[in-house]
């Protein structure tokens, strides 16, 4: 029964993704076409090889709508065309090169943010309105307020340049090089999740069934871990969708500061060089990932929370 409900929910959400994807692709296609001196513009001085590639790729002699539908089909088939700046590369190849690195850092940061954030939040909630609660939450607010492009140079300055304990930048798949980027990326998310968890845990601890659990004489550990934790995590789970978007955005800065050859670095380089096809490709690619994560989070949330009735709510 519940399985069926979930399947139905999954199907309806999946259909709901279609317009979002369509809007994403449409906006990026027409924005690029609007660009003054765009890649399809004869005045833009594109090297002749790329021009030829682009013209072949986008069938520039066809009417606009035909080009649009062709592009739509290609994006669905996951083909983003040649890069405008990197002569011998297609956008697909650049994504294949950069994304594994970005995904590793982002995934680790997300894990770290989830566990550290929940731990800190629970800690603060159990000591509500004490000095340690205020201290921890004050630091969490600082974590939200300090942009990661401020944290990163400061960490490099203290730990790498003055301390000499860690390499300042670069990438080679060792933990020494990964540590600072992952921590930098995770910090704001840790702070946000800690605040969420604290508020949610305090609310749950005031509910009747927790009082019942305590009245039964269950040890406090069991009350917290077995009864209070799961409902506490619901708002945190639903935050994981936006968190994905925030981490991806943050990775752009973090990769730049630590000179990591991830997708974010290519994206910034592309944006600065007006590499339209690359920028468009990365926007659509990351957009798809964010949409996909929101979808997974939605399902996870419904699965964890049997009270929810999506069909009745709307």
């Amino acid at each position, binding site marked *: 029964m519940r399985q069926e409900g979930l399947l139905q929910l999954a199907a309806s959400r999946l259909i709901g993704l279609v317009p979002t994807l369509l809007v994403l692709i449409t906006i990026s296609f027409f924005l690029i076409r*609007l660009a003054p001196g765009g890649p399809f513009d004869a005045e833009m001085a594109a090297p002749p090889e790329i021009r030829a590639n682009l013209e072949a790729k986008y069938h520039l002699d066809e009417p606009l709508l035909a080009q649009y539908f062709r592009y739509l089909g290609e994006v669905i088939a996951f083909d983003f065309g040649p890069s405008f700046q990197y002569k011998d590369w297609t956008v697909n190849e650049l994504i294949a090169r950069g994304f594994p690195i970005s995904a590793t850092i982002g995934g680790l940061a997300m894990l770290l943010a989830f566990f550290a954030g929940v731990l800190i939040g629970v800690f603060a909630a159990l000591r509500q309105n004490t000095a340690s609660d205020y201290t921890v939450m004050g630091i969490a607010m600082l974590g*939200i*307020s300090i942009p990661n492009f401020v944290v*990163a140079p*400061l960490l490099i300055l203290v730990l790498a340049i003055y301390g000499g304990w860690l390499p300042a930048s670069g990438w080679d798949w060792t933990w020494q090089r990964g540590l600072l980027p992952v921590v930098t990326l995770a910090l704001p998310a840790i702070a946000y999740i800690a605040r969420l968890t604290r508020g949610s845990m305090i609310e749950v601890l005031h509910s009747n069934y927790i009082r019942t659990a305590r009245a039964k004489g269950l040890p406090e550990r069991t009350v917290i871990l077995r009864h209070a934790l799961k409902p506490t995590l619901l708002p945190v789970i639903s935050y994981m969708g936006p968190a994905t978007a925030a981490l991806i955005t943050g990775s752009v800065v973090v990769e730049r500061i630590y000179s990591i050859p991830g997708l974010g670095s290519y994206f910034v380089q592309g*944006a600065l060089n007006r590499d339209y096809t690359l920028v468009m490709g*990365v926007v659509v690619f990351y957009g798809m990932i964010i949409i996909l994560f929101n979808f997974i989070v939605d399902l996870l949330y419904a699965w964890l929370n049997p009270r929810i009735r999506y069909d009745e709510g709307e």
Partner: protein
Amino acid sequence: MNDNVEKRRSERTVDDVFAQAMAEPDIRGRSLWVDAWHRLLRNRAAVVSGVLMILIVLAVVVGPMIAPWAGDFTDWDNTSSPPSLETGHWFGTDAVGRDILVRTLEGGRISLLVGLVATLVSLVIGVSYGAVAGYYGGMTDRIMMRVVDIIYALPFMFFVILLMVVFGRHIILIFVAIGAVNWLDMARIVRGQTLSLKNTEFIEAARACGVDHHSIILRHIVPNLLGVVIVYVTLTIPQVILVESFLSFIGLGVQEPMSSWGALVNNGAQDMESAPWTLVFPAVFLTVTLYCFNYIGDGMRDALDPKDRA
């Protein structure tokens, strides 16, 4: 307390009550704000943040006017000099001898200006969109909110970057791009509030008097949204400042000779090994400002949000 008022009222003549009512108009309306104000003043973090914020705004506005240097003045005798009282460069200078204090204050002008203007843009779009959707309800509401849902799922920052890439890096565009993409939360909140407002008696009364929809929304609904909107504006400003600094940091925001805190942090990060003060001072200003806005917003929400009043 209400009982007392009722008792006293019943002891007086109708004329008395009427005269008093005329003498003290809107006593309930005012007390909501006075209440909120007192609650805010009890929140120490918010008060400290408010005072700090006022100091920063004053410094940013007045500072560059009374400073002995202009932001683009290059002091060739003191390039990359550390902070010192002797040279007169209290925050030191950068690699070409520009005074960091003056540049930080001037950068602050841009950062705060972007924060205010872009928030205003998102405010206007969000409030009108949300109020219209909530007020008309039904099919209109469903379609309008579906649109918001769809846009909401898009990677916001990437669209701002895409806009900057396509249309060039002009300061006006920064305002518009950030504001135009940042109104979704505002629209959602305002719509919810409007939905609950539109069935109240005073709106019904206005409708019965023959006031048209346009005026009801503008004159009766929107003023009553003020509390929620103020809280949300305070929380949006730091977000917008952050977005602008982010853009400037990666080189897509304001361009030289103009600068903002994000651009200064970017410059500072490049010279931090030899001249860490070029990084630290703008970074501190930016962080303290964001910190203060977040605390003030939190405090305002606690003070004004009816949900937490119980």
